[in-house]
Protein backbone atom coordinates (compact mmCIF):
# COMPACT_ATOMS: atom_id res chain seq x y z
CA UNK A 1 0.00 0.00 0.00
CA UNK A 2 2.99 2.28 0.34
CA UNK A 3 3.17 2.81 -3.39
CA UNK A 4 0.17 4.08 -5.29
CA UNK A 5 1.59 5.22 -8.60
CA UNK A 6 -1.73 5.26 -10.44
CA UNK A 7 -3.08 8.19 -8.45
CA UNK A 8 -1.68 11.66 -8.62
CA UNK A 9 -1.18 12.20 -4.93
CA UNK A 10 1.23 10.37 -2.72
CA UNK A 11 -0.35 8.67 0.27
CA UNK A 12 0.31 10.56 3.45
CA UNK A 13 0.11 7.53 5.69
CA UNK A 14 0.24 3.81 5.86
CA UNK A 15 -3.05 1.94 6.23
CA UNK A 16 -4.25 3.33 9.52
CA UNK A 17 -5.47 1.70 12.73
CA UNK A 18 -9.16 2.51 12.07
CA UNK A 19 -8.92 0.00 9.21
CA UNK A 20 -7.84 -2.81 11.52
CA UNK A 21 -10.03 -5.84 12.04
CA UNK A 22 -10.82 -4.92 15.62
CA UNK A 23 -11.92 -1.42 14.74
CA UNK A 24 -14.01 -2.82 11.92
CA UNK A 25 -15.79 -5.24 14.21
CA UNK A 26 -16.58 -2.46 16.64
CA UNK A 27 -17.98 -0.27 13.90
CA UNK A 28 -20.44 -2.92 12.79
CA UNK A 29 -24.12 -2.08 12.82
CA UNK A 30 -25.77 -5.11 14.47
CA UNK A 31 -28.80 -4.77 12.19
CA UNK A 32 -26.62 -5.64 9.22
CA UNK A 33 -25.98 -8.99 10.80
CA UNK A 34 -29.58 -9.96 11.43
CA UNK A 35 -29.71 -11.54 8.00
CA UNK A 36 -26.79 -13.87 8.74
CA UNK A 37 -28.25 -14.85 12.10
CA UNK A 38 -31.65 -15.42 10.50
CA UNK A 39 -30.01 -17.57 7.85
CA UNK A 40 -28.38 -19.79 10.46
CA UNK A 41 -31.55 -19.99 12.57
CA UNK A 42 -33.73 -21.01 9.63
CA UNK A 43 -31.10 -23.49 8.50
CA UNK A 44 -30.97 -24.98 11.99
CA UNK A 45 -34.76 -25.06 12.26
CA UNK A 46 -35.24 -26.98 9.03
CA UNK A 47 -32.24 -29.18 9.72
CA UNK A 48 -33.92 -30.39 12.91
CA UNK A 49 -37.58 -30.48 11.89
CA UNK A 50 -36.93 -31.88 8.41
CA UNK A 51 -34.10 -34.19 9.35
CA UNK A 52 -35.95 -37.26 8.15
CA UNK A 53 -36.97 -35.59 4.91
CA UNK A 54 -33.35 -35.06 3.95
CA UNK A 55 -33.22 -31.27 4.19
CA UNK A 56 -29.59 -31.26 5.26
CA UNK A 57 -28.33 -33.65 2.59
CA UNK A 58 -25.77 -32.15 0.27
CA UNK A 59 -28.03 -33.02 -2.65
CA UNK A 60 -30.84 -30.93 -1.24
CA UNK A 61 -28.57 -28.02 -0.29
CA UNK A 62 -27.04 -27.98 -3.76
CA UNK A 63 -30.53 -28.09 -5.14
CA UNK A 64 -31.42 -24.97 -3.15
CA UNK A 65 -28.29 -23.24 -4.38
CA UNK A 66 -29.11 -24.10 -7.99
CA UNK A 67 -32.74 -23.06 -7.71
CA UNK A 68 -31.91 -19.68 -6.22
CA UNK A 69 -29.35 -18.77 -8.90
CA UNK A 70 -31.70 -16.67 -11.09
CA UNK A 71 -33.15 -14.83 -8.09
CA UNK A 72 -29.68 -14.13 -6.71
CA UNK A 73 -28.52 -12.73 -10.04
CA UNK A 74 -31.55 -10.42 -10.20
CA UNK A 75 -31.06 -9.50 -6.55
CA UNK A 76 -27.51 -8.30 -7.27
CA UNK A 77 -28.89 -5.97 -9.95
CA UNK A 78 -31.67 -4.85 -7.64
CA UNK A 79 -29.14 -3.88 -4.93
CA UNK A 80 -27.76 -1.29 -7.33
CA UNK A 81 -31.22 -0.06 -8.31
CA UNK A 82 -32.53 0.32 -4.76
CA UNK A 83 -29.26 1.82 -3.54
CA UNK A 84 -29.58 4.52 -6.18
CA UNK A 85 -33.06 5.34 -4.86
CA UNK A 86 -34.87 3.71 -7.80
CA UNK A 87 -36.82 0.49 -8.22
CA UNK A 88 -37.19 -1.98 -11.09
CA UNK A 89 -40.53 -3.79 -11.19
CA UNK A 90 -39.96 -5.16 -14.68
CA UNK A 91 -37.37 -7.84 -13.82
CA UNK A 92 -39.85 -10.73 -13.70
CA UNK A 93 -41.27 -9.87 -17.11
CA UNK A 94 -37.78 -9.47 -18.57
CA UNK A 95 -36.99 -13.03 -17.46
CA UNK A 96 -39.86 -14.41 -19.52
CA UNK A 97 -39.15 -12.38 -22.66
CA UNK A 98 -35.39 -12.96 -22.49
CA UNK A 99 -35.97 -16.68 -21.97
CA UNK A 100 -38.31 -16.99 -24.95
CA UNK A 101 -36.13 -14.92 -27.26
CA UNK A 102 -33.09 -16.96 -26.24
CA UNK A 103 -34.89 -20.24 -26.85
CA UNK A 104 -36.13 -19.14 -30.28
CA UNK A 105 -32.76 -17.80 -31.43
CA UNK A 106 -31.07 -20.92 -30.08
CA UNK A 107 -33.44 -23.08 -32.11
CA UNK A 108 -33.24 -21.02 -35.31
CA UNK A 109 -29.76 -19.46 -35.30
CA UNK A 110 -27.20 -20.62 -32.78
CA UNK A 111 -25.69 -20.54 -29.34
CA UNK A 112 -23.75 -17.28 -29.28
CA UNK A 113 -26.48 -15.19 -30.93
CA UNK A 114 -28.97 -16.72 -28.49
CA UNK A 115 -26.96 -15.66 -25.45
CA UNK A 116 -26.43 -12.20 -26.92
CA UNK A 117 -30.13 -11.89 -27.71
CA UNK A 118 -31.20 -12.88 -24.21
CA UNK A 119 -28.82 -10.46 -22.51
CA UNK A 120 -29.63 -7.84 -25.15
CA UNK A 121 -33.35 -8.04 -24.43
CA UNK A 122 -32.64 -7.39 -20.75
CA UNK A 123 -30.25 -4.54 -21.45
CA UNK A 124 -32.66 -2.99 -23.95
CA UNK A 125 -35.61 -3.01 -21.56
CA UNK A 126 -33.32 -1.59 -18.86
CA UNK A 127 -32.23 1.12 -21.28
CA UNK A 128 -35.84 2.01 -22.11
CA UNK A 129 -36.61 2.16 -18.38
CA UNK A 130 -33.57 4.34 -17.80
CA UNK A 131 -34.28 6.72 -20.66
CA UNK A 132 -37.84 7.35 -19.48
CA UNK A 133 -36.60 7.89 -15.92
CA UNK A 134 -33.79 10.26 -16.86
CA UNK A 135 -35.04 12.10 -19.95
CA UNK A 136 -38.66 12.56 -18.87
CA UNK A 137 -37.86 12.64 -15.15
CA UNK A 138 -40.51 10.05 -14.34
CA UNK A 139 -40.43 7.95 -11.18
CA UNK A 140 -38.91 4.53 -11.89
CA UNK A 141 -41.77 2.97 -9.94
CA UNK A 142 -44.27 4.07 -12.60
CA UNK A 143 -42.00 3.54 -15.61
CA UNK A 144 -41.10 -0.02 -14.64
CA UNK A 145 -44.69 -0.74 -13.63
CA UNK A 146 -45.65 0.11 -17.20
CA UNK A 147 -42.81 -1.86 -18.82
CA UNK A 148 -43.56 -4.79 -16.51
CA UNK A 149 -46.95 -5.11 -18.20
CA UNK A 150 -45.64 -4.23 -21.62
CA UNK A 151 -42.83 -6.78 -21.56
CA UNK A 152 -45.08 -9.49 -20.09
CA UNK A 153 -47.45 -8.84 -22.99
CA UNK A 154 -44.61 -9.12 -25.50
CA UNK A 155 -43.53 -12.40 -23.92
CA UNK A 156 -47.03 -13.86 -24.31
CA UNK A 157 -47.27 -12.53 -27.84
CA UNK A 158 -43.92 -13.89 -29.16
CA UNK A 159 -45.06 -17.50 -29.14
CA UNK A 160 -48.80 -17.13 -28.51
CA UNK A 161 -48.35 -18.63 -25.04
CA UNK A 162 -46.53 -21.66 -26.48
CA UNK A 163 -43.52 -23.00 -24.61
CA UNK A 164 -40.30 -23.44 -26.57
CA UNK A 165 -38.17 -26.48 -25.89
CA UNK A 166 -34.39 -26.22 -25.88
CA UNK A 167 -32.28 -29.04 -27.26
CA UNK A 168 -28.74 -27.77 -27.07
CA UNK A 169 -26.41 -29.63 -24.75
CA UNK A 170 -23.77 -26.92 -24.62
CA UNK A 171 -26.28 -24.28 -23.62
CA UNK A 172 -27.95 -26.52 -21.07
CA UNK A 173 -24.58 -27.38 -19.60
CA UNK A 174 -23.22 -23.84 -19.39
CA UNK A 175 -26.40 -22.22 -18.11
CA UNK A 176 -28.04 -25.04 -16.24
CA UNK A 177 -27.34 -28.67 -15.62
CA UNK A 178 -23.56 -28.74 -16.12
CA UNK A 179 -20.75 -28.71 -13.60
CA UNK A 180 -17.39 -27.03 -13.32
CA UNK A 181 -15.38 -29.69 -11.54
CA UNK A 182 -17.49 -30.57 -8.51
CA UNK A 183 -19.47 -27.30 -8.62
CA UNK A 184 -22.74 -26.98 -10.55
CA UNK A 185 -22.52 -24.28 -13.21
CA UNK A 186 -25.49 -22.45 -11.70
CA UNK A 187 -23.53 -22.11 -8.46
CA UNK A 188 -20.53 -20.85 -10.44
CA UNK A 189 -22.77 -18.20 -12.04
CA UNK A 190 -24.07 -17.20 -8.63
CA UNK A 191 -20.60 -16.84 -7.16
CA UNK A 192 -19.27 -14.98 -10.19
CA UNK A 193 -22.12 -12.45 -10.31
CA UNK A 194 -22.11 -11.87 -6.56
CA UNK A 195 -18.33 -11.37 -6.58
CA UNK A 196 -18.49 -9.00 -9.53
CA UNK A 197 -21.40 -7.09 -8.00
CA UNK A 198 -19.65 -6.85 -4.64
CA UNK A 199 -16.45 -5.50 -6.14
CA UNK A 200 -18.24 -2.88 -8.22
CA UNK A 201 -20.50 -1.91 -5.32
CA UNK A 202 -17.85 -1.65 -2.61
CA UNK A 203 -14.56 -1.06 -4.36
CA UNK A 204 -15.27 1.06 -7.41
CA UNK A 205 -16.05 4.74 -7.64
CA UNK A 206 -19.23 3.81 -9.47
CA UNK A 207 -20.54 2.03 -6.37
CA UNK A 208 -19.85 5.06 -4.22
CA UNK A 209 -21.67 7.24 -6.75
CA UNK A 210 -24.69 4.92 -6.77
CA UNK A 211 -24.94 5.20 -2.99
CA UNK A 212 -24.50 8.97 -3.04
CA UNK A 213 -27.21 9.42 -5.67
CA UNK A 214 -29.64 7.28 -3.68
CA UNK A 215 -28.76 9.03 -0.45
CA UNK A 216 -29.01 12.64 -1.59
CA UNK A 217 -29.23 13.24 -5.32
CA UNK A 218 -28.79 16.99 -4.87
CA UNK A 219 -25.59 16.49 -2.89
CA UNK A 220 -24.31 14.06 -5.51
CA UNK A 221 -25.07 16.53 -8.29
CA UNK A 222 -23.24 19.46 -6.73
CA UNK A 223 -20.14 17.32 -6.25
CA UNK A 224 -20.07 16.74 -9.98
CA UNK A 225 -21.55 13.24 -10.11
CA UNK A 226 -23.62 12.69 -13.26
CA UNK A 227 -26.82 11.67 -11.49
CA UNK A 228 -28.73 10.72 -14.64
CA UNK A 229 -25.90 8.57 -15.92
CA UNK A 230 -25.94 6.65 -12.63
CA UNK A 231 -29.72 6.19 -12.76
CA UNK A 232 -29.56 4.98 -16.34
CA UNK A 233 -26.69 2.63 -15.51
CA UNK A 234 -28.39 0.92 -12.56
CA UNK A 235 -31.53 0.23 -14.60
CA UNK A 236 -29.46 -1.21 -17.47
CA UNK A 237 -27.55 -3.35 -14.96
CA UNK A 238 -30.78 -4.62 -13.46
CA UNK A 239 -32.32 -5.36 -16.88
CA UNK A 240 -29.21 -7.20 -18.03
CA UNK A 241 -29.13 -9.21 -14.79
CA UNK A 242 -32.76 -10.19 -15.38
CA UNK A 243 -31.83 -11.24 -18.92
CA UNK A 244 -29.09 -13.46 -17.51
CA UNK A 245 -31.57 -14.87 -15.00
CA UNK A 246 -33.76 -15.79 -17.99
CA UNK A 247 -30.84 -17.69 -19.54
CA UNK A 248 -30.27 -19.56 -16.28
CA UNK A 249 -33.93 -20.63 -16.14
CA UNK A 250 -33.81 -21.86 -19.73
CA UNK A 251 -30.58 -23.73 -19.02
CA UNK A 252 -32.01 -25.48 -15.98
CA UNK A 253 -35.50 -26.25 -17.30
CA UNK A 254 -34.38 -26.70 -20.93
CA UNK A 255 -37.45 -24.89 -22.11
CA UNK A 256 -38.81 -21.36 -22.10
CA UNK A 257 -42.31 -20.18 -21.37
CA UNK A 258 -44.03 -16.91 -20.64
CA UNK A 259 -44.62 -18.00 -17.05
CA UNK A 260 -40.91 -17.98 -16.14
CA UNK A 261 -40.07 -15.32 -13.59
CA UNK A 262 -43.73 -14.49 -12.99
CA UNK A 263 -43.45 -14.80 -9.20
CA UNK A 264 -39.89 -13.56 -8.87
CA UNK A 265 -40.29 -9.81 -8.39
CA UNK A 266 -41.49 -10.03 -4.80
CA UNK A 267 -38.90 -12.66 -3.89
CA UNK A 268 -36.08 -10.59 -5.39
CA UNK A 269 -37.09 -7.45 -3.52
CA UNK A 270 -37.59 -9.46 -0.33
CA UNK A 271 -34.14 -11.03 -0.68
CA UNK A 272 -32.48 -7.67 -1.25
CA UNK A 273 -34.27 -5.87 1.55
CA UNK A 274 -33.81 -8.70 4.06
CA UNK A 275 -30.14 -8.60 3.05
CA UNK A 276 -29.82 -5.10 4.46
CA UNK A 277 -30.36 -2.85 1.44
CA UNK A 278 -32.40 0.25 2.23
CA UNK A 279 -35.61 0.41 0.24
CA UNK A 280 -35.12 4.16 -0.16
CA UNK A 281 -31.53 4.24 -1.28
CA UNK A 282 -28.15 5.13 0.15
CA UNK A 283 -27.19 1.85 1.81
CA UNK A 284 -27.02 -1.80 0.91
CA UNK A 285 -25.06 -5.01 0.56
CA UNK A 286 -24.52 -7.41 -2.33
CA UNK A 287 -23.41 -10.26 -0.08
CA UNK A 288 -26.44 -9.60 2.12
CA UNK A 289 -28.66 -9.95 -0.94
CA UNK A 290 -27.10 -13.34 -1.67
CA UNK A 291 -27.88 -14.51 1.86
CA UNK A 292 -31.38 -13.04 1.57
CA UNK A 293 -31.90 -14.98 -1.62
CA UNK A 294 -30.67 -18.20 0.01
CA UNK A 295 -33.07 -17.62 2.90
CA UNK A 296 -35.98 -17.26 0.48
CA UNK A 297 -34.85 -20.41 -1.35
CA UNK A 298 -34.52 -22.35 1.89
CA UNK A 299 -38.01 -21.31 2.93
CA UNK A 300 -39.56 -22.47 -0.31
CA UNK A 301 -37.65 -25.74 -0.19
CA UNK A 302 -38.33 -26.37 3.49
CA UNK A 303 -42.02 -25.61 3.17
CA UNK A 304 -42.35 -28.01 0.25
CA UNK A 305 -40.58 -30.73 2.22
CA UNK A 306 -42.95 -30.02 5.11
CA UNK A 307 -45.74 -30.96 2.74
CA UNK A 308 -47.38 -27.56 2.43
CA UNK A 309 -49.27 -27.08 -0.80
CA UNK A 310 -48.60 -23.98 -2.84
CA UNK A 311 -51.45 -21.98 -1.28
CA UNK A 312 -50.20 -22.72 2.21
CA UNK A 313 -46.65 -21.91 1.07
CA UNK A 314 -47.76 -18.46 -0.01
CA UNK A 315 -49.30 -17.78 3.38
CA UNK A 316 -46.28 -19.12 5.26
CA UNK A 317 -43.88 -17.12 3.07
CA UNK A 318 -45.89 -13.96 3.67
CA UNK A 319 -45.81 -14.46 7.44
CA UNK A 320 -42.09 -15.20 7.45
CA UNK A 321 -41.43 -12.23 5.22
CA UNK A 322 -43.24 -9.93 7.63
CA UNK A 323 -41.17 -11.28 10.50
CA UNK A 324 -37.94 -10.93 8.56
CA UNK A 325 -38.72 -7.41 7.43
CA UNK A 326 -39.71 -6.35 10.94
CA UNK A 327 -36.38 -7.60 12.23
CA UNK A 328 -34.22 -6.01 9.57
CA UNK A 329 -36.00 -2.86 8.48
CA UNK A 330 -37.05 -1.40 11.81
CA UNK A 331 -35.46 2.06 11.79
CA UNK A 332 -33.68 2.76 15.07
CA UNK A 333 -35.71 4.84 17.48
CA UNK A 334 -35.26 8.55 17.05
CA UNK A 335 -33.64 8.21 13.64
Amino acid at each position, binding site marked *: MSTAPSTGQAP*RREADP*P*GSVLARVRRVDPRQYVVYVAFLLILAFFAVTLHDDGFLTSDNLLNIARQTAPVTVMAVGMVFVLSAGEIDLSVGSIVALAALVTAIVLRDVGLVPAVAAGLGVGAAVGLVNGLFVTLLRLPSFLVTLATMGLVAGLARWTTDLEAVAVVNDTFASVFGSGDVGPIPSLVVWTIAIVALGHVVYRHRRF*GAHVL*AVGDNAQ*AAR*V*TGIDVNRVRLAVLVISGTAAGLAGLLYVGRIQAASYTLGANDLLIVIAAVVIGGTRLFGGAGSVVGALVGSLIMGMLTNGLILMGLDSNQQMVAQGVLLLIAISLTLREPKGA
Partner: protein
Amino acid sequence: MAELSTAPGTPLVRLAGVGKRFGAVVALRSVDLDVHAGEIVALVGDNGAGKSTLLKIIAGVHPPSHGEILLDGEPVRMATPSDARAHGIEVVYQDLALADNQPVYMNLFLGRELVSGPLRRLDRARMAAETAELLKELDIRIPSPRVPIRALSGGQRQGVAIARATHWGERLILMDEPTAALGVQETARVEDTILRMKERGKAILIVSHSLDQVFRLADRICVLRRGEQVGVRETAQTDGDEIVAMITGLR
Protein backbone atom coordinates in the same frame (compact mmCIF):
# COMPACT_ATOMS: atom_id res chain seq x y z
CA MET B 1 -8.90 47.22 -16.34
CA ALA B 2 -9.95 43.71 -17.25
CA GLU B 3 -7.96 43.42 -20.46
CA LEU B 4 -4.69 42.34 -18.76
CA SER B 5 -5.53 39.06 -17.08
CA THR B 6 -2.31 39.00 -15.09
CA ALA B 7 -2.57 42.55 -13.81
CA PRO B 8 -2.68 42.73 -10.03
CA GLY B 9 -5.91 44.67 -10.21
CA THR B 10 -7.76 41.97 -12.10
CA PRO B 11 -10.38 40.46 -9.85
CA LEU B 12 -10.35 36.71 -9.37
CA VAL B 13 -14.00 36.65 -10.22
CA ARG B 14 -16.08 39.36 -11.85
CA LEU B 15 -19.83 39.23 -12.26
CA ALA B 16 -21.06 41.45 -15.07
CA GLY B 17 -24.80 42.01 -15.25
CA VAL B 18 -25.60 38.53 -13.93
CA GLY B 19 -29.30 37.77 -13.52
CA LYS B 20 -31.61 34.80 -13.14
CA ARG B 21 -35.23 34.15 -13.96
CA PHE B 22 -37.15 31.04 -12.86
CA GLY B 23 -40.06 31.03 -15.28
CA ALA B 24 -42.01 34.14 -14.37
CA VAL B 25 -40.08 34.72 -11.12
CA VAL B 26 -37.17 37.13 -11.41
CA ALA B 27 -34.87 35.85 -8.67
CA LEU B 28 -31.98 38.13 -9.56
CA ARG B 29 -32.08 41.20 -11.76
CA SER B 30 -28.54 42.33 -12.58
CA VAL B 31 -25.53 41.98 -10.34
CA ASP B 32 -22.08 43.51 -10.92
CA LEU B 33 -19.52 42.38 -8.40
CA ASP B 34 -15.76 41.80 -8.15
CA VAL B 35 -14.05 39.53 -5.65
CA HIS B 36 -10.27 39.65 -5.46
CA ALA B 37 -7.89 36.99 -4.22
CA GLY B 38 -7.38 37.35 -0.48
CA GLU B 39 -10.63 39.25 -0.11
CA ILE B 40 -13.82 38.46 1.78
CA VAL B 41 -17.02 39.86 0.33
CA ALA B 42 -20.28 39.50 2.23
CA LEU B 43 -23.64 39.10 0.55
CA VAL B 44 -26.54 40.33 2.65
CA GLY B 45 -30.27 40.79 2.17
CA ASP B 46 -33.60 39.55 3.47
CA ASN B 47 -35.07 36.12 2.86
CA GLY B 48 -35.68 35.56 -0.82
CA ALA B 49 -33.42 38.44 -1.84
CA GLY B 50 -31.53 36.15 -4.24
CA LYS B 51 -28.33 35.47 -2.28
CA SER B 52 -28.36 31.70 -2.64
CA THR B 53 -29.35 32.04 -6.26
CA LEU B 54 -26.28 34.19 -6.93
CA LEU B 55 -23.97 31.67 -5.27
CA LYS B 56 -25.55 28.82 -7.22
CA ILE B 57 -24.99 30.67 -10.50
CA ILE B 58 -21.29 31.04 -9.72
CA ALA B 59 -21.16 27.40 -8.62
CA GLY B 60 -22.59 26.11 -11.89
CA VAL B 61 -25.82 24.83 -10.34
CA HIS B 62 -28.02 27.30 -12.23
CA PRO B 63 -26.99 28.79 -15.56
CA PRO B 64 -27.47 32.57 -15.50
CA SER B 65 -30.36 33.91 -17.59
CA HIS B 66 -28.13 36.78 -18.64
CA GLY B 67 -24.79 38.35 -17.80
CA GLU B 68 -21.23 37.09 -17.71
CA ILE B 69 -18.86 35.51 -15.22
CA LEU B 70 -15.17 36.31 -15.66
CA LEU B 71 -12.40 34.41 -13.92
CA ASP B 72 -9.08 36.24 -13.96
CA GLY B 73 -10.54 38.42 -16.65
CA GLU B 74 -11.55 35.52 -18.89
CA PRO B 75 -15.22 34.90 -19.56
CA VAL B 76 -16.16 31.38 -18.43
CA ARG B 77 -19.23 29.26 -18.78
CA MET B 78 -20.20 27.43 -15.64
CA ALA B 79 -22.63 24.87 -17.07
CA THR B 80 -22.30 22.25 -14.33
CA PRO B 81 -20.94 22.07 -10.79
CA SER B 82 -18.02 20.09 -12.21
CA ASP B 83 -17.02 23.11 -14.33
CA ALA B 84 -16.93 25.31 -11.26
CA ARG B 85 -14.99 22.70 -9.31
CA ALA B 86 -12.46 22.43 -12.13
CA HIS B 87 -11.91 26.18 -11.77
CA GLY B 88 -11.12 25.78 -8.06
CA ILE B 89 -14.50 27.00 -6.85
CA GLU B 90 -16.14 25.27 -3.89
CA VAL B 91 -19.40 25.86 -2.09
CA VAL B 92 -20.77 25.40 1.42
CA TYR B 93 -24.47 25.11 0.66
CA GLN B 94 -27.17 26.42 2.95
CA ASP B 95 -28.90 23.04 2.81
CA LEU B 96 -25.51 21.35 3.42
CA ALA B 97 -25.49 18.94 0.46
CA LEU B 98 -24.17 15.98 2.43
CA ALA B 99 -25.13 12.35 1.91
CA ASP B 100 -26.45 11.31 5.33
CA ASN B 101 -25.87 7.58 5.18
CA GLN B 102 -22.36 7.75 3.77
CA PRO B 103 -19.30 8.00 5.98
CA VAL B 104 -17.72 11.37 6.65
CA TYR B 105 -14.65 10.59 4.55
CA MET B 106 -16.82 9.66 1.56
CA ASN B 107 -18.62 12.99 1.80
CA LEU B 108 -15.31 14.81 1.82
CA PHE B 109 -14.17 12.99 -1.30
CA LEU B 110 -17.53 12.69 -3.07
CA GLY B 111 -17.03 12.93 -6.82
CA ARG B 112 -13.24 12.84 -6.31
CA GLU B 113 -12.76 9.54 -4.56
CA LEU B 114 -9.19 8.32 -4.14
CA VAL B 115 -8.30 5.06 -5.84
CA SER B 116 -5.18 2.94 -5.78
CA GLY B 117 -3.54 0.20 -7.75
CA PRO B 118 -3.92 -0.74 -11.40
CA LEU B 119 -7.52 -1.85 -10.73
CA ARG B 120 -8.40 1.59 -9.41
CA ARG B 121 -9.81 0.20 -6.20
CA LEU B 122 -11.39 2.73 -3.83
CA ASP B 123 -8.79 3.64 -1.23
CA ARG B 124 -11.02 3.95 1.81
CA ALA B 125 -8.17 3.80 4.31
CA ARG B 126 -6.37 6.73 2.74
CA MET B 127 -9.55 8.78 2.38
CA ALA B 128 -10.30 8.18 6.06
CA ALA B 129 -6.76 9.06 7.10
CA GLU B 130 -6.68 12.27 5.07
CA THR B 131 -10.09 13.23 6.41
CA ALA B 132 -8.97 12.73 9.99
CA GLU B 133 -5.91 14.86 9.35
CA LEU B 134 -7.87 17.65 7.68
CA LEU B 135 -10.52 17.81 10.39
CA LYS B 136 -7.83 17.88 13.05
CA GLU B 137 -6.13 20.74 11.24
CA LEU B 138 -9.39 22.68 11.25
CA ASP B 139 -10.13 21.71 14.85
CA ILE B 140 -13.40 20.03 13.88
CA ARG B 141 -14.08 17.26 16.35
CA ILE B 142 -15.97 14.16 15.25
CA PRO B 143 -15.86 10.62 16.67
CA SER B 144 -14.30 9.07 13.55
CA PRO B 145 -14.12 9.81 9.81
CA ARG B 146 -15.86 6.49 9.24
CA VAL B 147 -19.14 7.29 11.00
CA PRO B 148 -22.07 8.23 8.75
CA ILE B 149 -23.08 11.88 8.57
CA ARG B 150 -26.40 11.15 10.28
CA ALA B 151 -24.49 10.31 13.46
CA LEU B 152 -23.15 13.88 13.69
CA SER B 153 -24.60 16.99 15.31
CA GLY B 154 -25.68 19.96 13.21
CA GLY B 155 -22.50 21.79 14.07
CA GLN B 156 -20.31 18.83 13.19
CA ARG B 157 -22.07 18.48 9.84
CA GLN B 158 -21.47 22.12 9.12
CA GLY B 159 -17.84 21.53 10.02
CA VAL B 160 -17.61 18.69 7.50
CA ALA B 161 -19.17 20.84 4.76
CA ILE B 162 -16.72 23.65 5.48
CA ALA B 163 -13.78 21.28 5.61
CA ARG B 164 -14.74 19.94 2.20
CA ALA B 165 -14.96 23.39 0.68
CA THR B 166 -11.70 24.65 2.16
CA HIS B 167 -9.90 21.46 1.21
CA TRP B 168 -10.86 21.54 -2.46
CA GLY B 169 -11.46 25.25 -3.03
CA GLU B 170 -8.19 26.36 -4.58
CA ARG B 171 -9.33 29.84 -5.50
CA LEU B 172 -12.86 30.82 -4.56
CA ILE B 173 -14.99 29.60 -1.68
CA LEU B 174 -18.69 30.35 -1.63
CA MET B 175 -20.41 30.04 1.73
CA ASP B 176 -24.15 30.19 2.29
CA GLU B 177 -24.81 30.96 5.96
CA PRO B 178 -21.99 28.70 7.15
CA THR B 179 -22.56 29.43 10.84
CA ALA B 180 -26.37 29.41 10.90
CA ALA B 181 -26.50 26.14 12.84
CA LEU B 182 -23.54 26.79 15.12
CA GLY B 183 -23.02 27.73 18.75
CA VAL B 184 -20.86 30.63 19.88
CA GLN B 185 -17.60 28.70 20.11
CA GLU B 186 -18.11 26.85 16.84
CA THR B 187 -18.98 30.10 15.11
CA ALA B 188 -15.77 31.67 16.33
CA ARG B 189 -13.84 28.69 15.07
CA VAL B 190 -15.43 28.84 11.63
CA GLU B 191 -14.73 32.58 11.41
CA ASP B 192 -11.15 31.81 12.30
CA THR B 193 -10.98 29.27 9.49
CA ILE B 194 -12.44 31.77 7.04
CA LEU B 195 -9.82 34.37 7.98
CA ARG B 196 -7.07 31.79 7.52
CA MET B 197 -8.39 31.00 4.03
CA LYS B 198 -8.22 34.70 3.26
CA GLU B 199 -4.61 34.83 4.47
CA ARG B 200 -3.81 32.00 2.09
CA GLY B 201 -4.97 34.21 -0.74
CA LYS B 202 -8.32 32.59 -1.42
CA ALA B 203 -11.29 34.68 -2.40
CA ILE B 204 -14.38 34.24 -0.24
CA LEU B 205 -17.97 35.19 -0.92
CA ILE B 206 -20.07 34.65 2.18
CA VAL B 207 -23.81 34.96 2.77
CA SER B 208 -24.73 35.84 6.33
CA HIS B 209 -27.73 37.17 8.21
CA SER B 210 -25.52 38.25 11.11
CA LEU B 211 -24.38 41.82 10.54
CA ASP B 212 -21.95 41.50 13.46
CA GLN B 213 -20.30 38.63 11.67
CA VAL B 214 -20.31 40.50 8.38
CA PHE B 215 -18.52 43.45 9.95
CA ARG B 216 -16.02 41.14 11.67
CA LEU B 217 -15.08 39.31 8.48
CA ALA B 218 -15.83 41.19 5.31
CA ASP B 219 -13.76 43.70 3.37
CA ARG B 220 -16.78 44.72 1.35
CA ILE B 221 -20.53 44.20 1.64
CA CYS B 222 -22.91 43.67 -1.26
CA VAL B 223 -26.59 44.27 -0.50
CA LEU B 224 -29.43 42.59 -2.39
CA ARG B 225 -33.10 43.41 -2.04
CA ARG B 226 -35.76 41.38 -3.86
CA GLY B 227 -33.34 40.36 -6.56
CA GLU B 228 -32.03 43.88 -7.00
CA GLN B 229 -28.44 44.88 -6.24
CA VAL B 230 -28.83 47.87 -3.95
CA GLY B 231 -25.13 48.63 -3.65
CA VAL B 232 -21.66 47.60 -2.52
CA ARG B 233 -19.90 49.25 0.44
CA GLU B 234 -16.39 49.09 1.88
CA THR B 235 -16.82 47.72 5.40
CA ALA B 236 -14.49 50.39 6.77
CA GLN B 237 -16.59 53.17 5.29
CA THR B 238 -20.07 52.11 6.33
CA ASP B 239 -21.95 51.11 9.46
CA GLY B 240 -24.75 48.81 10.52
CA ASP B 241 -27.40 51.48 10.20
CA GLU B 242 -26.62 52.14 6.58
CA ILE B 243 -26.54 48.45 5.69
CA VAL B 244 -29.85 47.83 7.50
CA ALA B 245 -31.38 50.73 5.63
CA MET B 246 -30.14 49.30 2.34
CA ILE B 247 -31.45 45.81 3.19
CA THR B 248 -34.91 47.00 4.18
CA GLY B 249 -35.23 49.93 1.81
CA LEU B 250 -36.37 52.10 4.77
CA ARG B 251 -34.60 55.20 5.93
